[in-house]
């Protein structure tokens, strides 16, 4: 029972990451390779502020979101005004150096050892104790994230982002400040990723750089495209499938099998196959 709950929490955290990634990639056409890096920055900021800085959980969470959004804006300003390929490369590099920085800025990140004993969220003297309580917390925050994205999908903002995605030149000719909008959206997406990072820090109570490496962002992309972009349902379906499916391997008997690499191979293959045969994924509303 506990394990099932654990899986559900994992799916929820990934779903919250995928839905904010969808805002960037699916709706605005910003091929962000840095989402996992922002997830990591959020998680580390939360952990570092609570464990080393003695901050309370809520302030740490808010600060993590704000700091990450600010970093995203800083990185986005020079890179988003250039063409897509320059941006992709810059994010690729950003992802690499965030890992390097996490591993090497020992005073704040404890280097390769990670940060342990992240406190549980609390209201007054009541602190969430059980796994089930934490799962509820994660579900609540994830629910809010989904609600915001659902509202967005019903707002005029969505059409504007789609215009930027589909034809930037025409969008500019219509008076849309494309660069500024992209920077704002990028920062918002990064903020949400940081929020997911916070959740992760509180739930697992332990953060390491391993959770934010390149394979994480690839997993997120696979989840996004398998589930389908521009779709709230897809943002849940993708993580559900890609988290639960490897669990089947446990029953098949995974002794001596290099499960992580098998998973990686499958994610990679899945990305290719989805692009060739079903770019809109399971529930998505537009072809890649």
């Amino acid at each position, binding site marked *: 029972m506990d394990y099932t709950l654990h899986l559900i929490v994992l799916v929820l955290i990934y779903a919250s990451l995928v839905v904010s990634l969808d805002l960037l990639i699916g709706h605005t056409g910003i091929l962000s390779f840095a989402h996992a890096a922002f997830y990591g920055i959020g998680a580390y900021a939360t952990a570092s502020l609570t464990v080393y800085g003695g901050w309370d959980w809520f302030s740490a969470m808010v600060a993590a979101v704000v700091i990450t959004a600010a970093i995203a804006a800083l990185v986005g300003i020079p890179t988003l005004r250039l063409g897509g390929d320059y941006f992709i490369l810059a994010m690729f590099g950003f992802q690499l150096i965030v890992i390097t920085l996490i591993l090497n800025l020992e005073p704040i990140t404890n280097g390769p050892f990670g940060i342990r004993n992240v406190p549980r969220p609390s209201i007054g003297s009541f602190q969430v104790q059980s796994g089930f309580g934490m799962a509820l917390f994660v579900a609540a925050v994830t629910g809010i994230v989904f609600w915001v994205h659902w509202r967005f999908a019903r707002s*005029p903002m969505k*059409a504007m982002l*789609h*215009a930027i995605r*589909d034809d930037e*030149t025409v*969008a500019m*000719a*219509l008076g849309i400040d494309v660069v500024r909008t992209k920077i704002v959206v990028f920062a*918002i997406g990064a903020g949400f990723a940081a929020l997911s990072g916070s959740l992760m820090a509180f739930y697992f109570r332990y953060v390491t750089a391993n959770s934010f490496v390149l394979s994480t962002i690839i997993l997120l992309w696979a989840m996004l495209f398998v589930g389908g972009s521009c779709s709230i349902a897809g943002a849940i379906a993708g993580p559900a499938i890609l988290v639960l499916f490897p669990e089947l391997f446990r029953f098949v008997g995974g002794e001596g099998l290099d499960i992580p690499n098998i998973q990686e191979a499958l994610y990679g293959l899945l990305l290719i196959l989805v692009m060739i045969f079903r770019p809109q994924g399971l529930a998505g509303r537009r072809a890649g």
Partner: protein
Amino acid sequence: MEAILQVEEISQSFGGLRAVDKASFSANDTEITSLIGPNGAGKTTIFNIISGFLPCESGKIVFRGQSIRELKPFEVARRGIARTFQDPRVFADMTVLENVVVGIRQKGERPLWALVRGSRVNAEWRRARERSEAILSTVGLIDRAKDLARDLSFGEQRFLSIARSLVGDPAIIMMDEPTVGLDRGTSAKLLELMTRLVEVERKALLVIEHNMDVVMSVSAKVVLLVQGAVVASGTPAEIRQNRSMVDAYLGRRHAAASH
């Protein structure tokens, strides 16, 4: 009629090629000015320069008395210069109505506020929709408002791209070959729209055109561009008198073109 847009001695080269060579002309308010010339003469390049997508090495561009040379494309658009492109370039996956709504600027444009304010957003959405519907009525596409843009015929997409450009209530609309690819009937409807835009909505039009019938019938002024330079400029009658010059530059190609 007053000149609303003035282009003075603008020049631009690409690599070693001089695409625009000290071109000067002006477009008057509430009039249709046509820009004609052989393919590759630099007409679209001039549009791109005016609308801010390309730089120009020298010269002045003045709109309503103010220089717009250094402005970015979205700033040019917000000043009141709209443009269409050679391809309609509609947003295929959106509905006709959404295509038009996109250009309507929300007050303040703060995405987060829009989400939080709830009902205010709905009121703005409604206003935006009403304005868009009015524009669609002007161009005659109101019946197709709910259809996907990809399902429109080429001619309808052309009209949609014009509708889109009207959203910001521009003072001048630059149209890049609006009649290309249209059959006679649709062309006539387009001419009608252009005339209405000028006479009823009091807008100025700057039009790149190859179709001489169109040019001669609705333009107040014609500007002939050859190899990046303005070679002649005047009323349609004056240009017609310069027939030999026009033919020399356009003639053989024009006769061969099956317009």
